């Protein structure tokens, strides 16, 4: 008896609280009540959508502002780079025999005449207009040189990323599903070895294997034009992926392992979800976000390796231009490429963040 009275009492208390919280709710039997708004997110009204939109827009704008600040600081670094040169750059380039007029002309060419702040102002306004100066070597605008060499580098990047996705996705999934079998153990060891092997060695090994032994690729050089260039690009792309694929596959693997123990996976199995739908929607898609984020994180490293790869495989891309420019002390060209590569990485990281937000609505952009 005691207990039943107690139930009734506590029931009353709950009812009162219920009324307190939603005075405007017209009671239609109690069961159909909308749960009271416990937080900003849980209330479900048109206003909620407007709020979400604002919230969604907010972190993106903040992230964008951050990217712009970083881009500006990249510019400052690029500007300072030429000022690192000990002594007079014009003198270094021209040697002792230079006349005073030559030196002045050269300083003007390099943008290092006049006081520092006016130099900086000029540099900023030039860069903003897309003017990175003239190459000392060829007297051609830096931007047009880069523009000419860019397609090769872009093709290399595209081939690499295509290959990364094709290799890393199945490898990561397989490594997660079969982690307790021999495949999982072999994967761990092979991945460790591949990640630690420097690209300039693995590149040479791959040339030895595929170009020298079986000539499935040219030993070096580039064939322009779409299908033809793939013949010269697949081996360089594979070389970069020797490092990239194991890293990403490992991240994907641990992410999938984490996801597969989630309750919604069990719920989906019980619902009877099967086949590709199950694997894509319940294992892969919720696990992709960390992998994409990592891809953004490794963007800088990939661009770095691309430089070495272009030299090994003799691909006339931006990387090769940079190395030539460094050898020739072509300061404006070096400066331009360094700045733009930094900008590229900032852009890639930003894009990775955006894709991430789309893939996983939970992921808060910071």
């Amino acid at each position, binding site marked *: 008896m005691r207990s039943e009275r107690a139930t009734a009492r506590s029931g009353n208390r709950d009812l009162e609280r219920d009324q307190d919280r939603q005075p405007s709710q017209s009671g239609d039997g109690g*069961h*159909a009540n909308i749960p009271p708004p*416990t937080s900003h997110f849980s209330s479900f009204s048109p206003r909620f959508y407007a709020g979400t939109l604002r919230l969604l827009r907010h972190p993106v704008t903040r992230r964008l502002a951050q990217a712009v600040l970083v881009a500006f600081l990249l510019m400052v670094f690029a500007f300072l780079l030429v000022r690192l040169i000990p002594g007079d750059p014009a003198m270094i380039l021209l040697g002792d025999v230079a006349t005073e007029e030559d030196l002045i002309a050269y300083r003007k060419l390099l943008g290092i005449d006049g006081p520092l702040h006016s130099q900086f102002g000029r540099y900023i306004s030039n860069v903003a207009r897309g003017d990175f100066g003239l190459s000392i070597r060829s007297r051609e605008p830096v931007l047009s040189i880069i523009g000419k060499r860019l397609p090769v580098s872009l093709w290399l990047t595209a081939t690499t990323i295509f290959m990364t996705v094709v290799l890393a996705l199945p490898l990561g999934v397989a490594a997660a599903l079969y982690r307790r079998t021999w495949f999982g153990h072999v994967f761990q060891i092979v991945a460790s070895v591949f990640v630690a092997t420097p690209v300039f060695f693995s590149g040479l090994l791959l040339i030895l294997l595929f170009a020298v032994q079986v000539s499935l690729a040219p030993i070096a050089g580039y064939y322009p034009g779409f299908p033809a260039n793939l013949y010269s690009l697949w081996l360089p792309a594979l070389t970069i992926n020797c490092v990239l694929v194991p890293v990403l596959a490992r991240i994907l693997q641990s992410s999938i392992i984490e996801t597969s123990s989630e309750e919604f996976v069990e*719920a989906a199995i019980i619902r009877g*979800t099967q086949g590709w739908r199950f694997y894509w*929607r319940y294992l892969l898609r919720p696990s992709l976000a960390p992998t994409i984020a990592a891809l953004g994180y490794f963007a800088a490293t990939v661009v770095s390796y691309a430089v070495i790869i272009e030299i090994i495989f003799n691909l006339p891309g931006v990387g090769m231009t940079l190395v030539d420019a460094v050898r020739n002390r072509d300061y404006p060209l070096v400066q331009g490429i360094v700045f733009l590569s930094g900008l590229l990485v900032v852009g890639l990281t930003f894009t990775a963040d955006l894709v991430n937000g789309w893939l996983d609505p939970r992921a808060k952009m910071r």
Partner: protein
Amino acid sequence: MLPVVDAANLSLDRRQAVGIVGESGSGKTMLCRALIGTLARHGAEITAGTVRFGGLDLAAASERVWRGIRGREIGYIPQSSLAGLNPVLTVETQLVESISAMGTLSRRQARDKAVELLERVRIPRAPQVLKARGHQLSGGMRQRVMIAAAIAQSPKLLIADEPTTALDVTIQREILSLITQLRHELNMALVLVSHDLAVIEDVCDDVMVMYAGASVESGPVAALSKTPRHPYTRALRVSRVDRALPGQDLDAIPGDAASVGSWPAGCRFWPRCSHADEECRRGSQPALMPIGRQLSACIHAERLVVGEQLPAVANQEDSARRRK
């Protein structure tokens, strides 16, 4: 491998509602997983015994057989409704999945059916909720969506594993009455798992009490609440959540629940039982024996008489509080 559940008996008829009650670690959830065929995912398996459903033995069923049963014949509502919804998919995608597993429906039809399902679980503004993702909904709303997914194919049996633990008391009540209503509308049998005997008394016809991997008492709800024939059931009744202050609900039973792998010899409840004697400590877990309208695994079940013993347990509760 460790035994997790080794002496559980549960049976229910069409349209009947059975509750399973016990503390955490008593094997309730594992029993549910056995009923839904997902033990293997959690590194467990059935080594002995049967699970009969209709004419089938599910304990020996292949994954292929299970695919025809899960969702279609047996629906399931998980413990945590947030974790139960895929964060990257909309409610619509997940509901349509449950629906279209049924047969060939067009996109349009499946969507209409999804709206109908949401309305069925009393969700207002269903078209809007369809476009939302789990984390955008409140706890009660999420649990309604999970119920909608579970009943999508009108199963004959619905299993609800602590469907209200994560929710507010008010919302708990709403969800439970929703489950009851749907059960009657759809002629479903129900297995409701809870650690709260009061919840089960409200919703179910029969109840099975589990302790340390064994069923210790079972029978009609009314019988068990009036004349509990096992000291553990008795203690559970005293520790009912609606009578205890927050954080005190389990203090009424002295000692810690026996954990998997360290079950005592004899009756598993004896270290915490005030009626335990030498006989209780010998042999293995006693089998369920009929007594009155129910089954009890207490060898002293006869001695536990109504008026005399209940205050004893209540006193024990008092002394437990005094000791603190």
